[in-house]
């Protein structure tokens, strides 16, 4: 495909893409998709969170995994940046720490594809006794 340089090009690209679009953009049914939040505050950015986000977007697309990758703030795990929160459909969110590109690749291959936990999970004590 040719490069997009102007808004007119973008419109053309849009028309071209619409034909190929999968259901996700049409239905916007994000609950059925993998949702990833990349912590993008000073601590995350300084540790390379942007590269991780770039990598996740590119690789999930290349590997045909329907996912929404977005930015979020600091979750308080500055020591373990870059951190990402992965929510598989109908599951509780899981936070991973020290996510470099290698770790991100492992998370895609093992956790996202096979639902197999990988090292580096930061335990979240979400569920209090009252909640249970």
């Amino acid at each position: 495909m040719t490069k997009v340089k102007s808004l007119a090009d973008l419109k053309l690209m849009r028309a071209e893409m619409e034909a190929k679009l999968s259901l996700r953009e049409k239905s916007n049914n994000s609950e059925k998709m993998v949702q990833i939040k990349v912590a993008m505050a000073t601590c995350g950015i300084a540790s390379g969170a942007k590269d991780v986000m770039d990598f996740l977007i590119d690789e999930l697309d290349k590997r045909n995994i329907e996912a929404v990758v977005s930015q979020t703030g600091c979750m308080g795990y500055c020591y373990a940046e870059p951190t990402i929160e992965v929510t598989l459909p109908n599951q509780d969110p899981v936070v991973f720490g020290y996510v470099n590109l290698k770790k991100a690749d492992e998370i895609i291959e093992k956790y996202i594809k096979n639902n197999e936990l990988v090292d580096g999970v930061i335990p979240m004590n979400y569920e209090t006794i009252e909640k249970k």
Partner: protein
Amino acid sequence: MKDLSLHILDILQNSIEAKATLLKINIEENTKDNVYTLTIEDNGKGMSKEMLNKVIDPFFTSRTTRKVGLGIPLLKQKAELTGGSFYIDSEEGKGTILKASFIFNNIDRPALGDIAGVLVLTAASNENIRFVYQHNTKEGEYIFDTDEIKEALDGMSLNNAKVIHYLKDMIIENLIDIQYTK
């Protein structure tokens, strides 16, 4: 942080946190006066005078998840390292404006870095916010306005790997046209 675009990414999060709906980012390369200026302006909730006085203190943050707030102090330090200056002003209920000026030919002026990626990734994560990026050089100006992009995309989400890719290319190509300093 390695380059200016990462600082911009960082500062933009402050505006997003402040519930801004319009975010203007401006870079002016003024070779004549030897100044490189970054201005970020938002229409978020703003800050009180008291808080404004504290934002350049690295041990101040509005967050509750941690006790330090380095985003603004780090940018200020980068600007001042080159002999440039830093300015921030804010009004409660109206918004905040921040200006970092660098001495253009100073060796400590950070490279711009992946500004296209920063803009597109942030816009894609915050589709309800209008981002207007303006870059001026002596060769001309380029404006990236997410309202125009949204109109062209006609309902298609920005948060899509292919759209992100095209938009990044579009920004870089246009910046090359005005011979921006990398």
